[in-house]
């Protein structure tokens, strides 16, 4: 591997160091780069002993950006665990979804310990989070031991050092755990600010995609939609939408704001990606909420398209006045 990379690259230098530092499995975590790619790592973490994840060992991927450590790693779990969705980037302030709070002096170890620290916390609908019942999580924890990863050729039964009776975390680990607590606090507070104003609003928002029944979902979905819009709208729309009316027509301002966000989304996507926008619904058919999401999404998309025209017209006039 040493010959393949430019050793002068800061990311390569740093990752080599981290690979050496994390070479041997500990009782709680282990991570190493794939044999053919220093910028993709696989990791295993032990579920915290005093939680529903006790006895579980979970496997996942870490994808590092070329600018690492200036930009944060992305973390994706591969073992079903009931807390984080499988195959999807996790929303912690430490991973790619909140790059503004990542610190270059953090490391992959910090990220692993944060993941462990995060497992027992409530998902509350944050991106990539699940809120399975304790029973389901315990069953998954048991099952997780059977997981084998072909890419890095390891089995969860032997991925980590066995827990010993005096397996007190080392001073270093405790320090890192404190850091994880800090990160957790930040993840919540950044959610609150993102969602707009008050904490109770954030709660409504975050429960947006962890619905259990179709009925609940129809009332909550629009909240989530509106709240998503609010950060971008913050400048031009300081009054946040009223939370108590479930489905109600959006004001032109809100529509405009929504339109803003959609345009931004579109810009970030491939041209053909608008199809993908409608793909989410079928995934949710465990609860038969799927069709309702589809209807809401389609309606909003249609509304967005219509009001885009209106918005464009308005914008034109508005500019003219200036």
């Amino acid at each position, binding site marked *: 591997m040493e010959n393949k990379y430019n050793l002068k690259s800061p990311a390569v230098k740093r990752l080599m160091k981290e690979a050496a530092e994390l070479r041997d499995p500990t009782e709680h975590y282990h991570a190493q780069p794939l044999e053919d790619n220093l910028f993709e790592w696989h990791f295993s973490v032990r579920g915290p002993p005093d939680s529903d994840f006790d006895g579980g060992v979970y496997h996942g991927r870490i994808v590092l950006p070329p600018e690492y450590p200036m930009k944060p790693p992305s973390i994706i779990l591969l073992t079903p665990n009931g807390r984080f969705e499988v195959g*999807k980037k996790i929303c912690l302030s430490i991973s790619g979804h909140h790059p503004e709070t990542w610190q270059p002096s953090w490391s992959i170890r910090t990220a692993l310990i944060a993941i462990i620290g995060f497992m027992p916390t409530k998902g509350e609908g944050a991106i990539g989070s699940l809120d399975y019942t304790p029973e389901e999580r315990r069953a998954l924890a048991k099952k997780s031991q059977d997981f084998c990863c072909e890419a890095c050729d390891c089995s969860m039964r032997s991925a980590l050092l066995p827990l010993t009776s005096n397996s007190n975390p080392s001073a270093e680990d405790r320090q890192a755990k404190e850091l994880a607590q800090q990160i957790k*606090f930040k993840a919540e507070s950044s959610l609150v600010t993102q969602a707009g104003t008050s904490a109770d609003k954030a709660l409504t928002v975050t429960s947006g995609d962890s619905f259990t029944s179709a009925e609940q979902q129809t009332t909550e979905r629009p909240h989530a939609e509106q709240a998503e819009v609010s950060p971008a709208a913050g400048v031009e729309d300081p009054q946040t939408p009223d939370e108590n009316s479930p489905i109600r027509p959006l004001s032109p301002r809100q529509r405009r704001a929504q339109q803003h966000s959609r345009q931004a989304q579109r810009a970030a*996507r491939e041209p053909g990606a608008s199809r993908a926008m409608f793909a989410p619904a079928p995934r949710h058919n465990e609860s038969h909420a799927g069709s309702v999401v589809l209807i809401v999404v389609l309606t909003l998309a249609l509304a967005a398209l219509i009001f885009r025209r209106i918005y464009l017209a308005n914008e034109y006039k508005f500019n003219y006045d200036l």
Partner: protein
Amino acid sequence: MAKEQKESSQGEMEGVNCLAYDEAIIAQQDKIQQEIANTNPLVSDRQDLSVLQKEYAEDDTVYQLKLKDLYKKYAYIRKTRPDGNCFYRAFGFAHLESLLENSKELQKFKEVAAKSKLDLVNEGFTEFTIEDFHNTFMDLIELCEKQPSLQELLNSFNDQNMSDYVVVYLRLLTSGYLQREHGFFEHFIEGGRTIKEFCQQEVEPMSKESDHIHIIALAKALNVSILVEYMDRGEGGTVNHHVFPEGGDPRIFLLYRPGHYDILYK
């Protein structure tokens, strides 16, 4: 890029629009940063101070008066890229530049800088994660020992990797000093946060802008005196300056306009 797109569409398959929204914000921010980067070098050449005149309307009396006041004291300006790291970059460059022809002070500074890593490690920073930043910082000081041309120093500061690593290290020093002196600084923190939280949210992450408290901490951490000229829309017709820490004998002069720092020369 292809990978990113793949991942973003994968995210949407999973079902939540906010994921795409999140990534759209990030993409948009990146785009804005890119635009700024294309038009502003990290640290510019030294320019005549009169370039500022063009930035303000002729009938903008507040700024035109203050500019006149500024001309009385300074002759040149060196601009930095407005990317949220401008204070650290301006400070880093201006300080090393001032030491280029003062080897005695440079040696003193080198000792302070060399020792600073140990202080950070003792405070709980992980050594292997901060040593790359420290090494880059020391490399730059050693470069100055060889008395390079000003252009060489400027090139180093315009090399994104090197320049950002210096910024990270200066941020770490600022954070370290704030935490070491938390008893004093915690009275100035807004929003009921602890010093540690403040450092993790406002000091250590890149692109977080600097305020008085950051400047005082860095000036004290490195034992360097900084003068900042404040030019804003306030009444008075003159620019106000402030020396950090108070009572020092500054050799570094920075111009502050709301949200941004540049370097001034007499």
